């Protein structure tokens, strides 16, 4: 474990968390856009979302995903990318952290979408927002947690395969 506190290892883990977190957030969004595009649902979604809100929503997803990936990988990789914990434990951590990330994203997205409503100053819109916030704070968070766990499981599996590919290349002559 002493290896894991070396400055080089800390820097390495920061880079890996940055890369994998961005990979997860980016691949998730591109896959959703691709699925919506091929099923014909993309124009209606784009028509209902302004550019600034879309950029802010992805920024929230990016930040929460890099943070949760960093928490997942904490102490998980030893020298030469060897596993420091059993793979099932790492995937279990990815599922749990995915759930936390889903809930954190929902809270961040709710704040991003609430700002223009609050700034509008319309009392009826603010009452609707409060009613929506109550829904978000209960069913929404549970739903986001479950979706996050599922996505975490999927990316935990993909990351394990990509780590295996990197180790194979490192061990090749």
């Amino acid at each position, binding site marked *: 474990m002493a290896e894991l506190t070396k400055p080089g290892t800390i820097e390495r883990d920061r880079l890996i968390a940055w890369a994998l977190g961005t990979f997860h957030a*980016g691949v998730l969004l*591109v896959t959703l856009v691709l699925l919506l595009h091929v099923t014909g649902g993309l124009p209606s979604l784009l028509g209902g*979302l302004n550019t600034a809100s879309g950029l802010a929503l992805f*920024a929230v997803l990016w930040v929460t995903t890099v943070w949760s990936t960093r928490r997942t990988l904490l102490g998980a990789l030893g020298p030469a990318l060897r596993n420091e914990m059993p793979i099932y434990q790492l995937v279990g951590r990815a599922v749990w952290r995915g759930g936390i990330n889903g809930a954190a994203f929902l809270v961040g997205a709710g704040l991003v979408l609430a700002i223009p409503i609050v700034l509008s100053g319309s009392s009826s819109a603010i009452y609707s927002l409060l009613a929506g916030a109550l829904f978000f704070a209960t069913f929404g968070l549970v739903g986001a947690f479950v979706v996050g766990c599922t996505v975490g499981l999927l990316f935990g599996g993909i990351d394990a395969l990509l780590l295996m590919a990197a180790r194979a290349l490192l061990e*090749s002559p």
Partner: protein
Amino acid sequence: MDPLHLLVRWAHVAGMAAILGGALLLWWLAARRPPLDDRLTTRVAERYEWIFWAAIGLQVMTGVGNLGAFGNALPPPESAWGTKLTIKLVAVLALALFSVPRTLIVAAGSEADTTPHLSLPLLYGSTTVIVIGILGLAVWLAHG
């Protein structure tokens, strides 16, 4: 054109320039014979990986922002433009998937601050080829 859309387009092009320029530089550094100082290549590669993923996040963000400018007028998937967009999105996914092992190998090398791995010229060469392919698709899309 409104200033936000202009900024989004500029960031999309600048991000692509950073990804392609860096990959070309690293390919040259890693493949160079006689090799340069090994630690220099490792350190430049490490910096590039930070920039690469920042640029990938920016490309995804601004790419969807560019699509947002179409709104309800986005061409359907079965149109020629829609097919090109499908191909470009799949190519972007392939680039992201291919880039994770490359970053992991660079990260493992930077941890030990040792000689860059022998696979680096192949990895950066392949990255350059994929990025040029995506750039070609982007130009093809931009011209309808």
